[in-house]
């Protein structure tokens, strides 16, 4: 009866909590009417009883089968005993007696000999194997042979990304503090309206984009079994990306802004630099894949190449002026801001996961076909959902409806991807607790499911009613850009860098990075979700607007606390990055004259 008892208060909760609870008979709240609820409960009871009965029946049947089998075994055993001869029985009993009387001498594991590791198997000796505070993780084994030009490119892309992560999140943290202390300072260059786009653009184009491309250089070369088409072009693109983010941020802080559309704040000459970088990168990747030494194109390369193609088109559509006056701009804005996330960051990162996740687990991806399905559905569904940022706005109703329908359709690629990744991890759960890389992937994959599904639900008209325009949106974007993208990128970086440079970061610092980022994100998300919901309900109830500002204040404090934790974790990450890439001066070894002679 447990389910019935649970379901009844649940329905009542739902019915009373919704501010749309109808007074008159309307069709929009059909699922809330007592008749429907009652029918649901009745069907649930029937279903419940059916399940109980069926389970009992099955249980009986299985029990009967088992009993029959046991009886048969007992009979066979008795027959075997009877068939034995007296001598045989004695031998068995004596063997058993000796076994029961055996006990250890106490010196089975040691000896008086000195310890010697003649095969080079021991990596580390510790006097406290059971450290109560820090779980020792596995070392990264074997370094990979990679051309030094490629190594250098990857390290520089990641290095630039780490710098932009620090800058971008410092700015974000500062902007978040302005909600708590709006009169901290009054410098025009540091005012909230100007810093907000600096934060978003820096972490988008600076951190995530540079990190993704750096990591992809390895994937493209490795899975094509060849060298990168042109190292020089990789450097040119590197310069263009950095220049674009740098100039863009200076412009924004000086008040030069393309029009205020989110992620479209860089003016076109600045964004053109970025687009040129994208195009050069695309050509470089494409030509590398075209000259691959194996016949199949690995699924990661599908995602990475397509993501670059789509983003180039996206930027062009977003910046061409011919259809952008009036609400035309708004349609493009909805399309662009969602595709920027969906076609660029999400698609590209998925490509990286398809390579780095199986790699770090040392096993193939669970299903290649699911990856292909996820690829095409990603293109079909994601492209059509931009207008869900403008539900109930003056944009055409059909456009809003298409966006909502396909937002629901996003369940397909999301469930496909999540299943694929979790099934790849299945059977290797103990690897996760032993690795400092895999927890990042696990968080990324879980958030991929939770964040994307939550986003789809948020597009529905009722949830839009409550959450739209509130701080809930900010929570959602951090759950996805941070929980999914950033965690995945960290997983990839911690996995590949030690293999390239032969240097591992201190495990305790990786642990500190992981937990601070994770707890910080949670504090950030939960406070803004709770506050955002209360804000929306306050608006629906028609309270004066200023009340919704006042009620948000404690939540903004918690957001700032979560943000601080996240920022501190990034400093630790930067430190870890430094540990992984720093050049050690070759140690001055005393060289014997004998050796010098040999070398000479």
């Amino acid at each position, binding site marked *: 009866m447990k389910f019935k008892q649970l379901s009844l208060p649940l329905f009542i909760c739902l019915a009373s909590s919704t501010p*749309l609870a109808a007074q008159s008979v309307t069709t929009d709240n059909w699922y809330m009417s007592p008749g429907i609820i009652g029918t649901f409960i009745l069907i649930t009871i029937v279903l419940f009883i059916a399940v109980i009965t069926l389970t009992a029946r099955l249980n009986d049947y299985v029990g009967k089968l088992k009993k029959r089998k046991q009886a048969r075994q007992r009979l066979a055993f008795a027959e075997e005993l009877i068939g034995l001869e007296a001598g045989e029985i004695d031998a068995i009993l004596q063997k058993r007696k000796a076994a029961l009387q055996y006990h250890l001498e106490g010196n089975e594991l040691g000896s008086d000999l000195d310890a010697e590791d003649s095969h080079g198997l021991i990596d580390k000796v510790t006097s406290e194997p059971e450290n109560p505070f820090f779980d020792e993780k596995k070392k990264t084994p074997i370094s990979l042979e990679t051309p030094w030009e490629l190594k250098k490119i990857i390290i520089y892309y990641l290095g630039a990304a780490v710098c932009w992560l620090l800058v971008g999140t410092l700015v974000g943290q500062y902007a978040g503090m302005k909600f708590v202390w709006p009169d901290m300072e009054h410098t025009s260059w540091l*005012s909230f309206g100007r810093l*907000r786009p600096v934060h978003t653009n820096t972490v988008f184009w600076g951190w995530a984009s540079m990190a993704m491309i750096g990591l992809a250089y390895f994937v493209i070369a490795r899975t094509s079994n060849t060298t990168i088409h042109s190292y020089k072009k990789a450097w040119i693109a590197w310069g263009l990306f950095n220049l674009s983010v740098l100039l863009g941020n200076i412009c924004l802080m000086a008040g030069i802004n393309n029009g205020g559309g989110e992620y479209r704040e860089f003016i076109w000459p600045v964004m053109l630099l970025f687009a040129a970088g994208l195009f050069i990168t695309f050509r470089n990747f494409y030509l590398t894949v*075209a000259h691959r030494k194996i016949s*199949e194109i690995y699924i990661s390369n599908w995602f990475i190449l397509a993501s670059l193609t789509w983003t180039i088109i996206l930027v062009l559509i977003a910046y061409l002026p011919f259809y952008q006056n009036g609400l*035309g701009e708004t349609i493009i804005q909805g399309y662009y801001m969602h595709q920027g996330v969906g076609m660029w960051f999400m698609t590209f990162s998925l490509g990286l996961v398809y390579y780095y996740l199986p790699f770090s687990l040392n096993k193939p991806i669970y299903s290649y076909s699911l990856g292909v399905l996820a690829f095409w559905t990603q293109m079909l569904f994601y492209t059509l959902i931009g207008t869900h940022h403008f539900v109930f706005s003056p944009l055409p109703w059909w456009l809003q409806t298409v966006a909502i329908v396909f937002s629901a359709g996003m369940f397909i690629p999301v469930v496909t991807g999540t299943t694929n990744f979790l099934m790849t991890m299945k059977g290797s759960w103990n690897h996760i607790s032993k690795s400092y890389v895999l927890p990042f992937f696990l968080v990324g994959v879980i958030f991929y499911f939770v964040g994307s599904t939550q986003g789809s639900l948020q597009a529905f008209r009722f949830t839009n009613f409550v959450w739209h325009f*509130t701080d809930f*949106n900010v929570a959602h974007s951090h759950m996805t850009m941070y929980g999914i993208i950033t965690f995945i990128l960290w997983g990839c970086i911690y996995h590949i860098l030690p293999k390239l440079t032969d240097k591992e970061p201190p495990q305790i610092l990786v642990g500190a990075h992981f937990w601070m980022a994770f707890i910080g994100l949670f504090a950030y998300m939960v406070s803004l979700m709770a506050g955002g919901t209360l804000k929306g309900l306050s608006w629906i109830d028609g309270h004066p607007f200023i009340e919704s500002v006042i009620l948000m204040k404690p939540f903004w404090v918690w957001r700032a606390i979560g943000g601080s934790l996240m920022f501190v974790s990034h400093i630790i990450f930067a430190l870890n990055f430094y540990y992984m890439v720093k050049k050690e001066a070759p140690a001055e070894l005393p060289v014997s004259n004998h050796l010098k002679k040999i070398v000479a």
Partner: protein
Amino acid sequence: MFNFHKDHRTLINTALAGFLLLSLGIAVLPAYQMQDVEPLPSQPLLTEQQLKGLSIYISEGCVACHTQQVRSIEMDKMWGGRPSMPSDYYFSKQRMDIWRQSPSLLGSERTGPDLTNIGKRQPAEQWHLLHLYNPRTVVSESVMPAYPWLFETKDASEISDNDVTVPVGKEFFNDASQQIVATEDALALIAYLQSLKQAELPGGTTPAFIASAKKAPANATAEQALDLPDGASLYTQTCAACHQTTGKGLPGAFPPLSGSSIVNDANYELLVKIILQGYDARSEFGQMPAFASQLTNEQIAAIANHERNSWGNSAAKISAEDVKKIREMVTPAND
């Protein structure tokens, strides 16, 4: 023929063509069609100063916190008389210059109020000047940034007649020899904000909002006994920005209501007239806008009753019927 696994050219071309086709259908074509609108007949062209204000509105990133769209749902009724429509943006959403595109005015976040109708809700220039210099001078709970760089400080002796001075309170600017003067930019931005008014639809038709059922009031107060809306809440919404929640007003800008002889007068006629028609009789204070077109008789009665019985004030309550009589008295019959 379509071997995506082995033929990189087919793979990339298909992905490209698919995405391009979908994008044209879902974004470019609808956007192109959306440009085909005309302004409403009653909609005024933006002046050069207002356009300059719009440009400052964009560079300061105001759109990060302020929306300009009244959605078609009932909760947005507080921001405008009707849902926004494409024509509303005819003059404001045009490409700004060669470097900058059409401004993204609709916005995605409402950390501050929607501004669709701010010109009607808050027409007083003096309020905007104070509010821009530092929002906390007029709304103490506000978290909006201050914009002191849109103002300059001048020696009191150098003030000319053309300078627009801002009566900032001592708490925020304490230097008797200096005065705060608005720059051209501040005046342009305010001119733009004042221009933000929902244009009337021809023929007086009003498209409906999608209704949501209201919750039954939890506990009846004295005002509900008179069958009036909640005066305190309406006061916070409509009046507190100038007269403050304390009823004390702001010295040098907005008069106090607490202890005011007009508010406490047994004859409520002048009080109701001021709310209906506005007031500009006292030069030491800013001008009060008229609220006849924004508030119903019930709402005005509720607000008046709140004012007459708060902050130590004490006067008899009035009813919606009383307000209606005065409204008929001050409104010409043909209107």
